[in-house]
C-alpha cells in the first residue's frame, strides 16, 4: 500500500512538472516576440509604435532576454515560489491578485455544477436501466446522447431564451444573487451528465451480467432491488475513475459559460487572457488547471483502494501487466 501511495505521488509530481514545462514551452513556441504580442494584445497599436522601454521592461520581467536554459530555470524558480509575475492586460496587477479575485466565483459555479452533474448523470443512468418499459429506457438513453452532442454554448443560448427571456425566471447576465448561478451551472451539468450517464449505465449493464448478480436474481430479488443493493456499488467504480475528466470538463465548460453569462471567473479570465495574449496570466492559468487535475486524480486514485481493495491486493497485482 505504501509503495502504491509513493509511486502515485511521484507520478503526480512528474505530471505537475510537465504541466509547468508545457506552460513555459507555449510561450517559447510563439512565432515572433512575446513581449511585442503582449503590448499589441493590449490594444496599444501596432508593434512598430510600441514603446521600446515598455518592451524592454516586459522582456526583463519575464526573463525573455536570457539564454533558454536560464529562462527555464528562472521560470521554475518563480513558479515554485508562487511568483506569477504581472498581468499586463489587467492594468499591470499581480497575476496572483487577478486570479485570486476570480477564483471564488468559479469555485462556486464549479461545485454547484458538479453536484448537479452527478445527480443528473446518476438519474439518467438509473432511468435508462431501471424504468419498466423499453420505450422509457431508450428515451433516457437518447437524452444522454443529445447531451453529449449539443455544444455547450447552444445549450446555454437555449436555456437563456426559454428561462430568462421568455419566462423571466432567472437573470441572463452577471453573478448577483443565488438565481444567477442556476442557468450557468445547469448548462455545464447537463453536458457532463450525458457522459457520466453513459459510462454509468454501461457499467451497470456489465456488472449485471456477473455471476453473483445472477445468484441474487435466483434468490428471487426484483430487478430494482438487485440493481440497487448488488450492482450499484461495483458499477460505480468506472464512474469514480472519470471524476478527474468530469472536473476538467467543468473547467472547460466554465470558459464558455462564464463568457456567455457574463460571470467573472477563471474561465472568463482565461479567454480574455488568450484574446489579449497576456502570457504570464495564461501560464499561471495553465499550471492552475493542470494542478487541479493532478490533485483531483491523485485524491481519486489514493482513495480508490478504500473503495475497491482489489487494486492493491497482491493477488490482483500479480495479474496486472
Amino acid at each position, binding site marked *: 500500500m505504501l509503495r502504491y501511495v509513493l509511486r*502515485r505521488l511521484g*507520478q503526480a509530481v*512528474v*505530471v*505537475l512538472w*510537465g*504541466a509547468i514545462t*508545457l*506552460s513555459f514551452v*507555449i*510561450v517559447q*513556441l*510563439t*512565432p515572433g516576440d512575446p513581449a511585442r504580442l503582449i503590448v499589441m494584445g493590449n490594444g496599444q497599436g501596432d508593434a512598430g509604435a510600441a514603446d521600446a522601454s515598455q518592451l524592454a521592461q516586459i522582456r526583463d520581467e519575464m526573463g525573455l532576454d536570457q539564454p533558454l536554459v536560464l529562462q527555464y530555470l528562472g521560470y521554475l524558480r518563480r513558479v515554485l515560489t508562487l511568483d506569477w509575475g504581472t498581468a499586463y492586460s489587467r492594468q499591470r496587477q499581480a497575476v496572483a491578485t487577478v486570479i485570486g479575485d476570480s477564483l471564488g466565483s468559479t469555485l462556486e459555479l464549479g461545485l454547484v455544477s458538479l453536484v448537479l452533474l452527478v445527480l443528473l448523470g446518476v438519474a439518467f443512468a438509473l432511468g435508462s436501466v431501471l424504468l419498466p418499459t423499453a420505450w422509457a429506457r431508450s428515451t433516457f438513453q437518447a437524452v444522454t*446522447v443529445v447531451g*453529449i*452532442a*449539443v*455544444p455547450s*454554448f*447552444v445549450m446555454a*443560448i*437555449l436555456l437563456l*431564451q426559454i428561462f430568462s*427571456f421568455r419566462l423571466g425566471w432567472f437573470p441572463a447576465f452577471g453573478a448577483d444573487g443565488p438565481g444567477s448561478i442556476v442557468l450557468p451551472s445547469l448548462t455545464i451539468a447537463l*453536458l*457532463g451528465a450525458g*457522459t457520466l450517464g*453513459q*459510462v454509468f449505465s454501461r457499467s451497470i449493464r456489465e456488472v449485471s451480467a456477473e455471476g453473483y448478480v445472477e445468484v441474487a436474481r435466483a434468490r428471487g430479488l426484483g430487478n430494482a432491488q438487485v440493481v440497487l443493493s448488488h450492482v450499484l456499488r461495483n458499477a460505480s467504480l*468506472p464512474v469514480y*475513475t*472519470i471524476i478527474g*475528466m468530469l472536473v*476538467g*470538463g467543468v*473547467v*472547460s465548460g466554465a*470558459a*464558455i459559460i462564464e*463568457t*456567455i453569462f457574463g460571470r467573472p471567473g477563471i474561465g472568463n479570465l*482565461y*479567454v480574455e*487572457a*488568450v*484574446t489579449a*495574449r497576456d*502570457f504570464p496570466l*495564461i501560464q499561471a*492559468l*495553465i499550471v492552475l*488547471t*493542470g494542478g487541479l*487535475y493532478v490533485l483531483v486524480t491523485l485524491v*481519486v*486514485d489514493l482513495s480508490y483502494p478504500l473503495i475497491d481493495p482489489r*487494486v492493491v491486493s497482491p493477488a490482483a497485482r500479480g495479474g*496486472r*501487466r
Partner: protein
Amino acid sequence: MSVLRDPVGAVGTAAGTAPGTDPSRTPVRASLRGLPRAVASHPGIAAASVFLLLLVGWVLVPDLFAPTDPVRAVGPSLAPPSGRFWFGTDLNGRDVYSRVVHGARSSLLAGLVAVLISLVCGGLLGMIAGYAGGILDAVISRAVEVLVSIPGLLLSLAIISALGFGVDKVAIAVGISGIPGMVRIARAETLRIIGLPYMDAATTSGTRRPVAILTHVVPNASGAIAVVAGIDLGGAILAVASLSFLGFGAVPPQPEWGSQINEGRTYIASAWWWTLFPSLVAALTVLSVNRISRGIGTREVR
C-alpha cells in the same frame, strides 16, 4: 496504475467523444463495409447519413444549395424566416441560410484537419510507444498524461495564444489537443496486436521492427483507431465551433457556424433565428457524426 488510468483515456479528452470505447477490453474490428447493413437496420443512422450527405453537398458546392451571396446584404435587416429567406436575415441584412451553407466548409474542414492531425501524430506515437516499450514508452506515456491534465478546450486555447488567431490555427490547436487520446488508443491496440501469435511468427522469421510495425501493426490497429477518429470528429467539430464562438476562429465577414452563433446571440430576444438555426445545424452535425461512427464501431461488439 494503468488499471486506474485506462478507463479515463478510453473516454477521450473532449466532451464530445464517446465513453467506454476501450479497445483493450472489447476488440473492435470495423470497416466502412459495415455501413450499408448498419443503415438498413437503424433508422437513426440512416437519417444521420442523409444529413451528412447534405452537408458534404454544402461543403463541395455551396452555391448550388444557397445561390444567395453569404457576405453581402441581400434583404432587410433582421427579417424573420420566410419563403425568400428560409432562416431569416441578420443585422446586416445577410441571408442566414446562405451563411450556414457557406459556413459548413470552414467549420467541417477545420474539424476534419484537426482529426487528421491527431490521427497521424497520435497514431504514430501510440504505435511507437506500444511497440518499443521501455523508456520511449514511459516518456511518451508521461507526456500524454501531461497533455491530458489540461482540459481539452483550455489546452487548445493555450496553443492558440501561442499560434495566433484564425480557422487554420484553431484546427491545429484542436488537433494537438486530440493527440493524447489517440496515443492511448493506438498504444493499447498495438499492445493487443503484439500479443497475438502472428507477431511472434513475424519476429522469429526475422522481420525487422519498423517493417513489422508497417506490415502487421498498422493495418490491424487501423480499424479501431479509425472508429475512435470518427467519434473524435464530432468532438473536433464541436471544439472548432466553440473556439470560433469565443472569437478565435473565422475573421468576421467570412461565414462560420461558431462565430455566426456568437454574432446572433445578443439579438436572441428579438431575432431568435439568427443564432438558433446555425446552432441547430451544428448540433445536428455533431449528433449525426457521433451516431454514425458509433454505429460502425459497435457493429461487431453487440
